[in-house]
């Protein structure tokens, strides 16, 4: 009797002994004999009709048996000496059986022969059903067959027959993906970022631990909610546009503003990926969010600080400028009147007086130089930068020529590469002027001076440098080099005010770059700089 109450005729076959009362084969009926001829004919008629009915019914059964898509079989459970279910034999298998299990020619065979590694729980289960007669519905895995089955099994026949009918379905496809999903979910829960999966109705179907931590709602609370409403999402572009992009490109990335459970607003870097089923149909969207609120704030602060610095610098420079400018007046007067004194009263001055006057001139000259340099420096910041392709190599070459012509007695070897830089031409000329002039000055004591202007690549950055084999400097005081007037050599050793490198630094910094110096006393110095490319 099936669970639905249908009669399934029993058709025992195989090699086990036929129990008393039954007939081997089903094409014969058992009827009492009648003696008369007319009786014989009638009996034969009846027999034929009965056979016909049986055949039809058997045919119906066979049809059902074999057209079932589900797997169906009848097994006899075999118990061991201790009474534990140890194996079972397939008495009957339907046509779908093979497709559902992957087992060929199972009829008549023992399960253990067909799949030696078949799990014990299967035998136990069928054994229990055979003994108790209680039908069971369950889902379980048959590792030996590499499948998952949805099974309905019930006892058939007498309890002693130990026969169990099994109606089952291979659900490995569904089960397999469930397994994969579960292990994937476990993996996703390890991720620090928030991972949210939404269905096509934007309802949350997955909410990882990262999302719990980021937003404050537990998975249970979030599941089922509309993602955008829960998080009060603020989009950079209309949601329709974004959804369209996901539909067409398969993904979208951008910044969103989300509200957390506690009311805080956070900025997230969000990546959406179309979520598809095994057939490639879109079933939702997987969203990966990274909290960048801190980073954005830092960027904002950096921008503010930068503009503050720029304003401060501009102030300082105009201060510089006006101070230098105002200092000129009195200085000019000192120089002029000193001259007048010298010109008109020289005869009245004794030796000492003349020396005093000389000192006045020397000091005023020096101060004039300092002021002019300061003015030069502050002027650098006031001019606007205009970037073009500058043939720095060519400029350096002509500068080298000028220097050599100015002192033909010196032996100086210039090594200049073909360098083109995208920067302000006028300012870069000043840079090369100052760097070369410095190198020229500090190699003046060398018998054979060598000044190199080249560049090297460090990843995506280009580092330009001027290297000389001159006096060098003590790197412990390296920072002073770029400070106005902070000299590392006395004026008698090497003349100068110490403004050259400060000017170079200002120019490079105005281009957004940086400059630094390396050197060794007696071995030479290298001034390097890099300028970031602008978009």
């Amino acid at each position, binding site marked *: 009797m099936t669970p639905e109450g249908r009669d399934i005729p029993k058709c025992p076959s195989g090699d086990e002994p036929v129990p008393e009362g039954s007939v081997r084969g089903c094409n014969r009926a058992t009827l009492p004999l009648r003696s008369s001829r007319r009786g014989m004919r009638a009996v034969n008629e009846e027999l034929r009709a009965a056979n016909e009915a049986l055949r039809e019914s058997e045919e119906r059964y066979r049809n059902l048996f074999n057209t079932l898509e589900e797997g169906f079989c009848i097994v006899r459970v075999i118990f061991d000496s201790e009474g534990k279910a140890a194996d079972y034999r397939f008495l009957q298998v339907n046509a779908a059986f093979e497709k559902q299990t992957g087992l060929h020619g199972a009829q008549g065979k023992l399960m253990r022969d067909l799949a030696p590694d078949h799990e014990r729980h299967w035998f136990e289960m069928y054994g229990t059903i055979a003994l108790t007669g209680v039908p069971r519905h369950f889902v379980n895995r048959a590792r030996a067959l590499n499948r998952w089955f949805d099974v309905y099994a019930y006892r058939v026949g007498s309890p002693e027959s130990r026969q169990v009918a099994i109606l089952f379905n291979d659900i490995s496809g569904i089960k397999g993906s469930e397994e994969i999903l579960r292990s994937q979910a476990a993996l996703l829960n390890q991720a620090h970022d928030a991972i949210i999966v939404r269905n096509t109705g934007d309802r949350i179907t997955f909410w990882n631990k990262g999302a719990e931590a980021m937003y404050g709602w537990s998975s249970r609370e979030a599941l089922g909610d509309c993602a955008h409403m829960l998080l009060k999402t603020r989009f950079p572009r209309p949601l329709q546009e974004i959804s369209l992009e996901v539909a067409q490109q398969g993904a979208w990335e951008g910044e969103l503003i989300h509200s957390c459970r506690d009311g805080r607003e956070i900025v997230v870097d969000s990546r959406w990926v179309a979520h598809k089923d095994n057939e490639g149909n879109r079933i939702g969207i997987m969203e990966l969010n990274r909290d960048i609120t801190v980073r954005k704030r830092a960027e904002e602060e950096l921008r503010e600080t930068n503009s503050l610095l720029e304003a401060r610098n501009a102030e300082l420079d105009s201060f510089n400028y006006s101070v230098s400018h105002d200092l000129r007046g009195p200085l000019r007067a000192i120089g002029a009147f000193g*001259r007048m004194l010298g010109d008109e009263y020289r005869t009245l001055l004794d030796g000492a007086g003349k020396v005093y006057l000389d000192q006045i001139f020397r000091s005023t000259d020096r101060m004039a130089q300092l002021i002019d340099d300061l003015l030069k420096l502050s002027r650098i910041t006031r001019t606007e930068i205009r970037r073009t392709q500058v043939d720095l190599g060519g400029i350096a070459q002509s500068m080298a020529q000028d220097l050599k012509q100015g002192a033909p007695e010196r032996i100086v070897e210039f090594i200049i590469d073909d360098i083109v830089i995208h920067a302000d031409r006028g300012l870069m000329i000043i840079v090369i002027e100052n760097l070369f002039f410095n190198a020229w000055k500090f190699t003046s004591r060398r018998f054979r001076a060598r000044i190199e202007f080249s560049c090297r690549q460090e990843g995506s950055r280009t580092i330009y440098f001027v290297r000389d084999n001159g006096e060098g400097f003590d790197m412990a005081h390296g920072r002073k080099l770029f400070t106005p007037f902070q000299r590392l050599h006395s004026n008698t050793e090497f003349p100068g005010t110490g403004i050259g490198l400060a000017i170079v630094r200002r120019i490079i910094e105005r281009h957004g770059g940086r400059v630094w110096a390396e050197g060794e006393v007696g071995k030479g110095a290298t001034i390097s700089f890099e300028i970031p490319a602008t978009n």
Partner: protein
Amino acid sequence: MATMRKAILVVDDDPADIFITEKAITKFWPGSFIEHASDGSEAIKLINNGHQPELILLDLKMPGLGGLEVLSEIRKQEKTRYIPVVMLTSSTLGSDLRAAYDAGANSYLNKTLDFDAFTEEIKAVLHYWLDLNMSLAEAS
């Protein structure tokens, strides 16, 4: 050649600067007749009261009536429109100089820190605008 006594007007708010400018002129041209004014309004008064100078050396940056305003005044009036005006400036900003030219200045002179250099420049200015054929050696 006989030289007319040409008047030179020096306008500057800094007395030391006036002294220096006059010294530079007289170093080159001992017999020169120099008048000075310390501010713009004084300068305009001097110009209008008959003593029309042949050359005006005008400081650009002055408090009150600044150099540019004085210049505009001079250029507005018919009788002073054509007097050569040379701006004296310590600024090298292109914008300042352009403004001066736009207002009607004929030339400019830098108040250099080097007195000797300044004297040379004054010499060139006087030579050009006053058509002087004199050198330091000749007396007026």
